[in-house]
């Protein structure tokens, strides 16, 4: 199983490597997307809560 033979995949390299590349690529993308989305959601919710707190504060001050 020489290294050169491994890369040429017995002449089928043109089909085997794109397959594996695509599969691993898409799986990594699918794994990474929810991570990024969760960070984004947490940040968005934090910003929204900060905004609501500020508003509540402003209303209290008007109340006094």
């Amino acid at each position, binding site marked *: 199983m020489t290294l050169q033979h491994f890369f040429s995949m017995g002449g089928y390299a043109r089909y085997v490597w794109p397959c594996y590349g695509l599969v691993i690529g898409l799986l990594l993308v699918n*794994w990474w997307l929810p991570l990024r989305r969760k960070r984004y959601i*947490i940040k968005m919710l934090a910003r929204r809560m900060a905004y609501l707190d500020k508003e509540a504060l402003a209303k209290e001050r008007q109340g006094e």
Partner: protein
Amino acid sequence: MWTFIHKLGSPKHCYRIAGYFIPYLGTISIVCFIYGLVGGLILAPADYQQGDGFRIIYVHVPSAFLSLSVYMVMALSATVSLIWRIKMADVITKVSAPLGATFTFLALVTGSLWGKPMWGTYWVWDARLTSELILLFLYVGYMALESALEDRHMAARASNILVLVGVVNIPIIHYSVVWWNTLHQGASISLLNKPTIAPSMLYPLLAMLVAFMAFFFAVMLMRARCEILLREQKSNWVKELVQTT
């Protein structure tokens, strides 16, 4: 047992349970994936007929298997949601669909790439490839209906019904396509029937299967957690969580 199911109903609990399982599933999938890759690409002997081209099955067969079993997972959670009205089941159905569609697309591409050396053309109207294609249409139809309806509850229930209609039709579509295939191309060997598998070839395949399954459940739970956060953003456990992180 019953309290466990009842607990599943509460989003907070689901979020925690999902968080607990994700690392385990992740490690299982990575370990099996590496073993499968090494076993499949290096250790397994070349097939006497198809040479090294057959190594594509280590990617094609798991994604084909996953494309169907993800639809079954969606059908199961759709039934649970429709009958016992557990809202968390809607989350699972909704987040699994894109993953199922990805696996179906992978199965199609790897199938056609495998077909090129064997049959000389990229697309072959082989029975299994055709039913994969139709399965992809079912996924796309589900996702289109899910996103078209604005109201969350209605969207969930309507698309659950569509999943159940789809699951009843999958065997019908599959066997009619297989019958149609034999009608037009005679009983030629189907592209995808696995060549006689020596054990050294089989174990990497099983490892890849486990790797794909673990990967699916891990990513599905991660996406479910995001969906739960969005849906329960007003509840205070989410507020605390947002503050602590």
